[in-house]
C-alpha cells in the first residue's frame, strides 16, 4: 500500500510527536508514505475564514502536486489539513466559480488539478485499507489495563462524515481495542478542545479544554488519545493555567499512533513520548496499578 503524505505545518512543529510516531508505525505495517515535494500551507484555520478562494488555491496547490507526482491517494494526518483538502475538493466539484478561480491561480504557476485525488485520514486507512486483523497481528505488547479515552475532535467528522459517524464516531475506539486497551466510553468525543480560542480568548478556550480533561478523569481514563495536533496541544499544554483558574486535572494526552507504537513494541524513546508536558506513565506502571 502506497500513499502520498502531506504532513502540514503542525507535524513538523508543535505536533512533531505525531509524525515521529506515525511514520514508524505505518512502516511497521508495510505502508509506504512518500512526502510531497515542496508542499505548502494547507490553507487552514484563519485563512479559510478570511478568504476562502485563496485558502482553496493553497490547498489545491498541494493536490496538484500530489497528482503531478502520481499519487493515487493522499494521506493527511492533521485534522485541519484533512478537512481543508477535502473541503477544497468539495468546493471545486460543487461550485464552478471556485473551480475557475483555483484553476486560474494554479495556472499561473503551471499546475493543474484534473482529477480528485482521494484525501485519506490515517484512521480511515488503518481500518478500511489495512484492517484491524493486520493491526492485531503486529501487537506484541498489548495495552492491557490501559484505560484510554478516544478523542476525535471536531474536524475529521464535521461537516463531512466520510468514514465515521458524526455524533458517535467509532473508528479509534475499535483501533484502540485491537491494541488491547480498555476504551473509556465518554460523551465528549467530538466536543471542541478550545481550538485557537486558547490563544485569542483564553477564558473561553481554556474552559473548553478543562471540561474535556475533567470529564476524561471523571470517567477513569489513564490517558486521552487524539488524532489532531491542535487538540493535543490544547489538552496537554495549559495544565498550569487550568489548575490556577479551576482545579488541577492532570492527565496525559497522546496521539493514537504513539499508543500503536507502544503496542507494536517499538522503542518508546523513538515515538516522541518525551515531548508531552504531562508525561504518560510507563506502561508497566499502569498495568501493575
Amino acid at each position: 500500500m502506497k500513499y502520498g503524505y502531506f504532513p502540514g505545518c503542525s507535524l513538523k512543529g508543535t505536533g512533531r510527536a505525531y509524525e515521529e510516531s506515525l511514520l514508524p508505525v505505518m512502516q511497521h505495517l508495510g505502508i509506504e508514505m512518500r512526502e510531497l515535494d515542496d508542499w505548502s500551507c494547507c490553507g487552514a484555520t484563519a485563512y479559510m475564514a478570511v478568504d476562502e478562494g485563496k485558502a482553496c488555491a493553497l490547498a489545491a496547490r498541494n493536490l496538484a502536486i500530489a497528482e503531478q507526482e502520481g499519487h493515487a491517494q493522499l494521506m493527511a494526518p492533521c485534522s485541519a489539513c484533512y478537512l481543508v483538502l477535502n473541503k477544497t475538493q468539495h468546493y471545486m466539484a460543487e461550485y464552478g466559480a471556485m473551480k475557475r478561480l483555483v484553476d486560474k491561480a494554479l495556472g499561473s504557476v503551471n499546475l493543474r488539478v484534473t482529477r480528485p485525488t482521494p484525501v485519506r485520514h490515517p484512521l480511515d486507512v488503518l481500518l478500511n485499507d489495512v484492517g484491524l486483523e493486520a493491526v492485531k497481528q503486529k501487537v506484541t505488547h498489548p495495552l492491557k489495563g490501559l484505560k484510554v479515552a478516544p478523542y476525535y475532535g471536531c474536524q475529521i467528522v464535521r461537516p463531512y462524515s466520510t468514514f465515521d459517524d458524526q455524533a458517535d464516531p467509532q473508528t479509534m475506539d475499535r483501533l484502540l481495542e485491537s491494541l488491547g486497551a480498555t476504551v473509556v466510553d465518554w460523551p465528549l468525543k467530538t466536543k471542541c478542545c478550545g481550538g485557537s480560542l486558547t490563544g485569542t480568548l483564553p477564558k473561553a478556550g481554556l474552559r473548553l479544554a478543562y471540561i474535556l480533561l475533567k470529564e476524561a478523569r471523571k470517567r477513569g481514563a489513564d490517558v486521552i488519545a487524539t488524532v489532531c495536533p491542535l487538540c493535543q496541544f490544547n489538552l496537554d499544554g495549559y495544565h498550569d493555567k487550568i489548575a490556577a483558574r479551576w482545579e488541577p486535572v492532570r492527565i496525559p494526552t497522546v496521539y493514537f499512533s504513539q499508543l500503536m507504537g507502544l503496542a507494536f513494541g517499538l522503542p518508546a524513546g523513538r515515538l516522541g513520548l518525551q515531548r508531552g508536558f504531562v508525561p504518560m506513565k510507563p506502561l508497566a506502571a499502569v498495568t501493575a496499578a
Partner: protein
Amino acid sequence: MAKQEQEVRIGFYVCHCGTNIAAMVDCPEVAQFVGTLPGVVLSKDYKYMCSDPGQELIQQDIREHRLNRVVVASCSPLLHEPTFRSATEKGGLNQFYFHMVNIREHDSWVHTDRAEATSKAKALAQAAVHRVAHHKPLETKRVSINPTTLVVGAGIAGIHAAMTIANSGKKVILVEREPTIGGHMAKFDKTFPTLDCAACILTPKMSDVGSHENIQVLSYSEVTKVDGFVGNYTVTVKRKPRYIDEEACIGCQDCIPACVFKQPKFADEFNEGLGKRRPVYIPFPQATPQIVAIDPNTCLNFKKGEDGGRVVSDKCKKTCVEACGDKNAIDFTQVERIEEYEVGSVIVATGFQTFDARRAPAYGYGRFPNVYTSLEIERLVNASGPTGGHVVMRDGKSEPRSVGIIHCVGSRDKKTNVWCSRVCCMYSMKLAHLLKEHTGAEIYNFYIDVRTPGKGYEEFYNKLLDEGVHFIRGRVGEVTDWAMTPDEEGKLVIRVEDTLAGYVRRIPVDMVVLATGLEPQQDAQDVRRMFNMSCGSEGFFLERHPKLAPVNTFNDGIYIAGACQGPKDIPDTVAQAGAAAAEVLALIDKGFVEQEPNTAFILEDECSGCKSCIPLCPYTAILFDEGKGRAYINEALCKGCGTCVGSCPSGSIVQNLFDDEEIFSEIEGVLAYE
C-alpha cells in the same frame, strides 16, 4: 389502404389551461400554425378544453364540420385522455380517432423560454396531426370483474376497507402477515386529539372482521405472487405455519401457562420488547383471530435444521399438547402452505414502519437505557401493556420525574428522511399528556415547528400549554450523560439551542422519548414490484394522481390506502380506506372494465413462421399454428406491450394504437417542424 377511403378531416384544439400553458406557450400561434397543415379542417385555442364547454366544442365541431379526427394539445394523456376520448365518442366518432399532445407537463411547465416552448408545442402538435391521420377505429374489449377483493394488510386501513366492502355483500380476502390483525393501531393506548381509547375503537372492529361472513382472514400469511389483470387476478398466498390447527383451536389459551417455560422469557414483539412471552403465545388478549401461535425460534420442540431453518426436534415434554387435550389443536408437523385465490381487485394497505432510532446516534437510543421510542411509550402507558400502565423506567421500579420528548427524529432531516411524518407532533403531545397524567412529571417537548393541521388539533395543543407542558423550540443537538453540575449527575442531559430564547440550554431529565418518524416498510419495493405499482422517491407507494385519483395506482384494479401511501393519521387513513373501498365497489358494480385495445395481432399472409416472437412474450400469448405454419396471438392474453412487434423480422405483427405507420408518422411529424 382502407383508411384512404374517406378524406381525413382533422379538428385541432390547443388548451390554455388557464395560464398553465398559455403563460409559456403562445396558444393562438400554435393554433394558427396547425391550421395550415394538410388535413386540418379547423384549428382553435380555448381556455379550458377539459371543461364542459370545451368538450361540447369538440362534439359540436365534429357534427358541424364533419370532422373525422380530433387532436387536443393540453396536459398529459395520463390525466385527460379518457375525457377527450369520451367527448370524441359523444360527437359521433370512434373514440380512437382521437390523439392527445402533452404541452403542459412536457412543455410549458418545464421550460423557461416562451419562443422555444412554443416551437416545441408546434412540433409535438404536428406529430399528432400526422399520426392521427393513420388512426383506425377500434373497439374496446369488455372484461368481467371477479367480485372478490383482496385486501393486503390488516391494520386500521385494511380492516376498514374490508368491512366496507364486506358490508355491501361482496367477498373479501384479508391477508395479514402477523399472527393477529390490528396493525400499529392495536398497540396504541389513546388516540389524539379526543383521547378515546384506541382499543375501544379498534377491537370491536377487529372481532367484527374476524366473524364477518363475507371476510376470510388469512393471518400469519403473505402474498407472494400476483398474476393477471384488472378484474381477474390470481394471487398466491404463503400461509406460514403457526403449528396450530386453526379449525381445531378454540382460543382457550390453556396451552400457554402449560408451557415448559414456567415464566415468560422471550422478548414480546407486540410490547416492543418491553414485556416477555412464552414460545406459545397470543400477541395480546383481544388478538384476532383468537388463535395462539408457536414460535419455532424459541420453542424447545424445535432445533436448527441443516439449512439454517428450524425443524422439529421432539425434545420437549410437550406439556402444551397435554393441556390442549382432545382438542388436538397443536400440530408440530405443520409446514408452509401455498394457496391460490382468484380476485378482481386489490387494496394494498401495508402500512409503515417507524424510523430506527439507532440511525440517529446523537440521541443515544440503545446506548442509554432510559431513552425510549414513542412506540415503547405507547405500550408503557397502556393499561394492557407490560407494566399494566404503570410508567416505570428500565430498572422496573422508578418513575420518571422529568421527561424530554424530542420531535422529528428521522423526519425533516437531510441526513435521514427529509419528509415530515405528519403524526409525530400530535402523538408527542398525546404522550406528553398521558405521561403527565400517569406520573406528574415535568414534560419538555423539543420541536422544530408544532404542526397541528387537523380538526381539533390546534385546540389540543392549546390544552397541553394550559396543562403546563413545556415547549422548547429547537432541534436537539444531543442526548448525553455528561454532567456539568451536581443536579445533572445521573440524568440524561438534553442539549439544545433554544431558538426563541436565543441561547444553548442543557435540560437534565430522567427519561427521553424519541418521536420517531414514519417510513415505508422494509419490503415496500418488493410489494411494489409484485403489484406492479410505482413508488415515490421516498419509497411510499405512488398514487395515480394526488387530487384526481388519490387511492388509484398506475395499475388498474390495484388501490392503495393508509400509511403505505405516505404518513397519515388514523382519521385520514380511515377516510382513504373508505375511498379505496368505494373505488372497488364501483368497479364490481359496473361488472366489467373496458380494456385498452392496444393488443397485437399477426398478419397471417406476412408471417414467415420463424417463431422468434414466441419466446419473447412474457404472457405466452403467442401460439403457433402448425397446420398453417404461422404464429398467431391469443388476444385475451395479450397485454399490449408491443415487444413482439418491435422484434418481428418480417414486420408482420401489428400493435393497435401503436402500429408502425402511426409511430413512423409521429417521428416524421415531430421532426418536420424546425
